[in-house]
């Protein structure tokens, strides 16, 4: 197992002083370091536990991602700019014609995500299958049983290491059948370390002499060409090096961050046709000519979008959307949630930036756009009158096609297969806006869906039956009466009028 730990120190913070890092022959001690941290573990197929082998051997490519939707703070994020709607995202391409049944039973057993089959639970995008769960607890749910499984119930140190991942802002698992390796990436992006003052206090030490741990403490290397990121700092291979090596690296980056913030909420009252309104502090400029501003939504049950409504360009323009480019997944317009087996649908919308920029000079107001949604009926409940439905905020980004494209293979932090970049050409740079949480702890909005309270189920049944019987008997009675001629009193009068 290879391990790499990167600390990204914001340029605003004090640079890591000499006594923050203490390298010895077999360990590196870090004290009071305020930084974003990324841990990367690389395991070969042979190093994987058996259950993981069973899962990955059916897949060509597998990505399992978690994002906790917490605030990133207004810090410099360097190469860690890309985000996803909060929750768990699974992308899988089968190896040959595999049904990936092991993946399905793995997630239903360990993550408690209902999965009768990949076909039933995942949405299909060509060969790629995608599943989304809008729940930040998905990560800790899966880690607890997994820690037991990997470490055995008694090994607390090992289990703590696995469970530590649950505090990460994002965790990516990636398996690739061509390299036959599993890569686990965890990012603690809020720079909240394990010390009380929010700094990192850790001792990095290989478990066995064979394990390699590469540690880097990096910060912005100053100005770099556009689309590139330059980092400088110190590197060490713990257990091998005697000294920290100073480095300065530049590499092209697919993802960049922008300071512009956005927030989202439902317009109220919500009813069964809610609209998510997103407000962007855009400031009237774009990163470059030819860039489009996009929003990527994951729309889980009980929400759904009406693809025919989203096709109505004029309506969407009035909602600040230039064009809805992609709607994929479950878009049945009538069925209730209990008749649905898939998680929902994804929507990629290109925002109407032209319209906004043309009025920016005059108005100087933030940009707004709206996604019209609908809600399925939800199951009845004896103790509740409503269910909470949560919708993660979209990720909002500029997509800038570039002719001067450099291979991303030189980027040690590259991240791909996020769910939206496949809809753009390979030579596209992404500049991500930053969600700003105001009254919430997660980038999610929720509303209450009215449901039928079934405590009165007896009254509903008998009441309906009673009403039908009364109505029926009344009509039946008049039919019988008329047929037997009881109603013929006014015949004479009727004839007169004729």
């Amino acid at each position, binding site marked *: 197992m290879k391990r790499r730990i990167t600390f990204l120190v914001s340029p605003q913070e004090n640079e890591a002083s000499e006594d923050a890092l203490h390298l010895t022959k077999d360990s590196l001690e870090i004290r009071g370091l305020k930084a974003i941290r990324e841990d990367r573990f690389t395991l070969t197929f042979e190093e994987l536990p058996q259950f993981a082998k069973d899962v990955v051997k059916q897949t060509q490519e597998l990505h399992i991602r978690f994002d906790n939707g917490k605030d990133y703070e207004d810090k410099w994020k360097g190469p860690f700019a890309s985000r996803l709607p909060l929750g768990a995202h699974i992308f899988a391409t089968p190896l040959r014609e595999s049904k990936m049944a092991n993946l399905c039973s793995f997630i239903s057993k360990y993550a408690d995500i209902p999965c009768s089959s990949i076909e039933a639970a995942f949405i299909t995008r060509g060969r790629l299958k995608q599943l989304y769960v809008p729940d930040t607890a998905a990560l800790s749910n899966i880690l607890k049983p997994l820690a037991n499984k990997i470490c055995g119930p008694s090994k607390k140190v090992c289990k703590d290491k696995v469970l530590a991942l649950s505090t990460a802002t994002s965790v990516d698992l990636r398996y690739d059948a061509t390299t036959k390796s599993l890569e686990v990436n965890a990012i603690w992006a809020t720079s909240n370390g394990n010390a009380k003052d929010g700094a990192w206090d850790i001792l990095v030490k290989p478990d066995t002499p064979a394990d390699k741990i590469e540690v880097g403490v990096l910060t912005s290397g100053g100005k770099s060409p556009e689309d590139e990121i330059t980092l400088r700092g110190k590197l060490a291979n713990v257990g091998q090096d005697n000294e920290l090596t100073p480095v300065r690296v530049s590499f092209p980056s697919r993802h960049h961050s922008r300071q512009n913030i956005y927030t989202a909420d439902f317009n109220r009252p919500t009813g069964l046709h809610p609209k998510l309104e997103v407000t962007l502090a855009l400031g009237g400029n774009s990163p470059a000519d030819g860039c489009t501003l996009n929003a990527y939504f994951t729309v889980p049950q009980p929400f759904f979008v009406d693809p*025919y409504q989203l096709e109505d360009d004029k309506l969407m323009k009035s909602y600040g959307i230039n064009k809805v480019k992609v709607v994929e997944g479950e878009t049945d*317009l009538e069925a209730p949630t209990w008749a649905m087996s898939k998680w929902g649908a994804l929507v990629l919308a290109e925002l109407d930036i032209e319209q906004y920029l043309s009025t920016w000079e005059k108005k100087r107001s933030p940009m707004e756009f709206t996604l019209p949604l609908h809600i399925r009926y939800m199951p009845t409940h004896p103790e509740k009158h409503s269910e909470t439905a949560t919708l993660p905020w979209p990720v909002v980004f500029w997509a800038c096609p570039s002719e001067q494209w450099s291979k991303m293979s030189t980027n040690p932090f590259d991240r791909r297969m996020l769910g939206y970049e496949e809809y753009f050409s390979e030579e596209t740079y992404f500049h991500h806006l930053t969600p700003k949480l105001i009254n919430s702890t997660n980038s999610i909005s929720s509303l209450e869906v009215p449901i*039928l309270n079934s405590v009165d189920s007896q009254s509903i049944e008998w009441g*309906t039956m009673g009403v*039908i019987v*009364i109505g029926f008997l009344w009509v039946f009675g008049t039919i019988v*009466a008329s047929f037997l001629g009881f109603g013929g009193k006014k015949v004479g009068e009727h004839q007169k009028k004729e």
Partner: protein
Amino acid sequence: MATISVTTLLLLSSLLRAVFLLYGLYQDATSVFKYTDIDYLVFTDAARYVSTASSPYLRATYRYTPLLSWLLLPTTFHPQSLWFSFGKVLFAVGDILAGYLIIQVLRQSHGFTATKSMKYASLWLLNPMVATISTRGSSEGLLGVIVIALLWAVEKKRVVVSGAILGFAVHFKIYPFIYAPSILLWMEPPGQRDIMAKIKGFVTKDRTVFTFTALTTFMALNAVMYAIYGHPFIVHTFLHHLTRLDHRHNFSPYNTLLYLKSSPFTPDPYYPAIQPSSLSIERLAFIPQILISAVLLPLFAKRNLSATMFAQTFAFVTFNKVVTSQYFMWYIVLLPVYLPYSSLLKSPIRGVVALVMWVVTQGLWLGQAYQLEFEGGNTFWPGLWAAAAGFFLVNCWILGVVVGDIGRVEKEEEEKKVYK
């Protein structure tokens, strides 16, 4: 009213629809609140699939005969700004044709004066609700003309034509099958006074021809459509309507119950023994509906076919498991051929009470539904349920009045028919 000609009335009603149609185009062009009915987009999308030699059932929620999408093929022609509205024009023309046939039925078969016939036909022709529905692009008006044409053909004793129209109507929308028993009973030869004579002489040439043409037309259309579009045609045109469990709120009194029974049931922790009853009355809903609309009411057909068909339709819609306001069009088209015999007109107070109660209970329901749909209020129980139940009971009362009216015209109608 008294002096205008039929042509003038038809021109007036065409003008009314033209104005509505143009206003609709204006509203669609300027507002995000569309005048055009959402179903019209379904039909025209389906027509677009047909124009590329694909199946109309590729369009989600297209649950109609392919004939409808064929009829609307011109909506795919260019320039779109002109041809897209073709279907609305077609539906509006259907409306006017239905109105014209109403006048013909009242004049020729019922012996009313032109003026009186036009007065009643105006209820349909100059009805802004009817004009709105067809110019918004809802196909229910087209069904109106089919049903009136059926009544016209039957009363004109055009047996083959009536059979063909009925077969076509049932293929188009299942419910007109309820008219079959009425028409068959109405075709009774004169002079069959007692029940034994009626039974013995039941099989007549007219009845045989009518049944044969109706079945042949219906099955031939189905066979052709099945040959072209296969299983999806059967699923969407027929099976969907028989198996749907419409759990979303609508005017039907069964609605809340359908939601309760189709949802997974969570037992109440305080009364865990209480389960929804295994007797699913919602599955038996067709019994009172069919018994009244297709079995009992046809027994009155001999007395007054047009009023009976109105009563049947009214009963079918009232007792249906799903009721939306478009279904009201099904019986509104028959209103002008029933009202001349109605005590609701002869006793204005009764008529006004019926109309007011029909409108008010519907309004109450709409208020509850609005709160649920747009304000997130939980009105499922008892509000929405009670409003639907109230509307149902009002409809049953009106149906009772209608049945009483048909009962009263017995003697004169019987005699008229005998001496014709």
